[in-house]
């Protein structure tokens, strides 16, 4: 008799707890937002507290390191996982996510809520929201504007002894470089130099093999030298554009820069290694995404007056690699309405202003077109300039294959010293042509 009585008591208790918990559960609605683990993500956590306070919807965050960010979340989307209600996905994912139904199309929602893409910087709308590109089909709200920029040791650049030595060597003043030739000249000047009893190196550039690093680095030189992904008049026709004489020069230049002016062992280095190299006082100049610049500016050792910023140098033309992401609602989310509510809240000009003040890079014109914006941070003006000259990698559904092909060809040539720049780019065209043929694009 004891067992049924105990069971009945337990069941009654469970029923009471469940009944009591019902109203509480209704109040604790929660959204999960997925993104990369980096400085701006911390700012978003802070910002989102306002959303929770206003809506009563709790926010949970799933942040993954950059090196496994694409793997982790593309797997999640491809398996129709319900982990993420909202996702801040990389710009190149937009084609695949739209065509495979991973993201909710936002056009009707934008129309209903009075959100217009005219309020956002055009480059970010094209880069983060549209698929197909240049068509008014929106799959994300521009969330985090970003591009490649450069930091330099302002304190070293302004030291009289170093300035004099550079003047003597180069016959010109030591200032942040405007062209890639100048950048290499400055980098080789610093390479191996002793500063405050320490050996320092010229420049930090991306060389990572596993995910997207070397592509995100080398394209900055390629764009400036004249590389194009395709014939503007004949889509997917790459011959003479990807492997043009200018593109070959750009690739050769990046290799020369790697060989002459980087620290030993930087054969597989991306964002974090760059930050480490700069923060430890190892390099004079660092290539990295603008997203890291607020944190670097606050760094007690190399920040403040010691750090300066400049836009990606030009050569034949201007161009810099687009970073950044849009925020999307995952189609498999069971809390779609709440997720849309978050996007509506996030799109408000006041929220966007606060986003920028906390360390996020807003794409909203209310922030960027504010006359005070260029002076709002030491890197703000350069950010604006950079966003006006960004170019992005393919955003096709097969972007991952295209990216891995480029990673291989670039690393083989630049780091492993295999073949020539011309061969690397010719092979890249062969790889990409195969992908587009498989996709039925050509």
């Amino acid at each position, binding site marked *: 008799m004891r067992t049924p009585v105990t069971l009945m008591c337990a069941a009654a208790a469970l029923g009471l707890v469940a009944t009591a918990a019902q109203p509480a559960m209704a109040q604790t609605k929660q959204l999960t937002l997925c993104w990369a683990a980096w400085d701006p993500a911390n700012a978003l956590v802070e910002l989102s507290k306002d959303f929770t306070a206003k809506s009563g919807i709790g926010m949970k965050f799933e942040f993954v390191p950059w090196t496994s960010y*694409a793997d982790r979340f593309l797997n999640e989307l491809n398996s129709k996982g319900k982990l993420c209600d909202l996702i801040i996905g990389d710009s190149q994912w937009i084609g695949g996510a739209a065509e495979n*139904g991973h993201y909710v199309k936002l056009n009707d929602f934008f129309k209903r809520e009075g959100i217009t893409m005219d309020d956002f910087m055009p480059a970010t709308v094209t880069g983060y929201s549209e698929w197909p590109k240049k068509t008014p089909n929106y799959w994300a709200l521009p969330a985090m504007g970003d591009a490649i920029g450069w930091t330099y040791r302002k304190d070293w650049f302004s030291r009289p002894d170093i300035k004099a030595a550079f003047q003597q060597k180069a016959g010109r003043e030591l200032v942040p470089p405007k062209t890639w030739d100048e950048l290499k000249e400055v980098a080789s000047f610093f390479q191996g130099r002793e500063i405050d009893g320490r050996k320092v190196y010229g420049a930090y550039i991306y060389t990572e093999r596993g995910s997207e690093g070397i592509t995100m680095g080398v394209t900055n030189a390629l764009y400036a030298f004249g590389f194009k992904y395709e014939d503007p008049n004949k889509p997917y026709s790459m011959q003479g554009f990807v492997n043009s004489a200018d593109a070959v020069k750009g690739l050769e230049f990046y290799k020369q820069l790697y060989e002459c002016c980087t620290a030993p*062992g930087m054969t597989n280095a991306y964002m974090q290694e760059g930050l480490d190299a700069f923060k430890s006082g190892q390099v004079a100049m660092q290539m990295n995404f603008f997203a890291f610049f607020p944190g670097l500016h606050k760094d007690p050792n190399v920040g403040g007056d010691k750090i300066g910023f400049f836009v990606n140098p030009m050569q034949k033309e201007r161009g810099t690699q687009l970073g950044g992401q849009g925020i999307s609602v995952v189609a498999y989310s069971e809390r779609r309405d709440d997720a849309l509510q978050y996007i509506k809240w996030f799109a408000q000009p006041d929220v966007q202003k606060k986003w920028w003040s906390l360390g996020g890079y807003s794409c909203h014109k209310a922030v960027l077109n504010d006359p005070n914006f260029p002076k709002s941070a030491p890197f703000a003006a350069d950010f604006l300039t950079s966003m006006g000259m960004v170019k992005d990698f393919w955003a096709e559904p097969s972007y991952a294959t295209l990216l891995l092909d480029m990673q291989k060809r670039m690393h083989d040539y630049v780091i492993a010293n295999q073949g020539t720049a011309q061969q690397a780019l010719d092979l890249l065209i062969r790889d990409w042509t195969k992908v587009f043929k498989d996709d039925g694009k050509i």
Partner: protein
Amino acid sequence: MTHTSSLHALARRAGAATPPAFAARVRGLSDRAVAWLFITPTIVLLLAINVFPLIWTIRLSFTNYRANRPNAPLRWVGLENYTSILSDPDVWHAMQTTAHFVVWSIALQVLLGFGLALLINRQFRGHGFWTTVILLPMMLSPAVVGNFWTFLFQPQTGLFNTIVAVLAGRDPSSFQMIGDVALAPWAIVLVDTWMWTPYVMLICLAGLRSIPDDLYEAAEVDRAGPWRRFWSITLPMVLPFLMLAVLFRGIENFKMFDMVNLLTSGGPGSTTEVASITLKREAFEKWRTGYSSAFAVILFVTVFGLANIYVKVLNGVKQR
């Protein structure tokens, strides 16, 4: 006594509580049926998690399926994936890299592992302590090993570079173990050898301990010297164990992924891109599921075939 009688009472009560019909049914089962009853869950599990995925993979290998495009039409491509893989120079390069890694790491592990086993097999002061120290590397996770060797190989601050530099009288940053095309393939061999030599040592030690002492005593009576005893007794008796170690390490290293991925990501360029890294990139980064299934089948058949031939040789050695 009290305990035994209470157990008997418990058994009687359990027997009485068992429904007679069921008891009769169980009693009526043959030994064979009972055996099947016991192994069926395991067989079902094996079919579900081993055999079914294998058959499914083989099926997918003849299609153009991509897991990231579930809505795309599935097309039967026959042997296209197989011919494409077997004629791809990048795949052959990955196979060569794998072969280099497997052959050299096993050769070194056998040599060092056997040597260590011979040393550890002797009784000396601190024997237990040194055995534990030697076994430590194989207890670590390959992910941890990959990560910390990355730091050890760091040209400016890495311990490995510093030690080599001191011994060779060179600047530590004058060479890059994982960034240099010539050195990187050896760097992965070195790390794998460091990690798995203790494993080979353990197996060899088991072989050495299984040799009857009277064989050595008889050899001594015949005035056989140490070399003669080694070549005529120790090595032949340990050989089956050694070959077993080679088999285990060979299979493991053929599908090596984690340590190499963390150490070099297959770089510089594609210098250390072993077959499993290529497979992972094709399957889970490029999402060419059909193609990567074909590649997986080729790798499986290769390992399975080689292992079978090897086991036959091993059995021959044992019978000798």
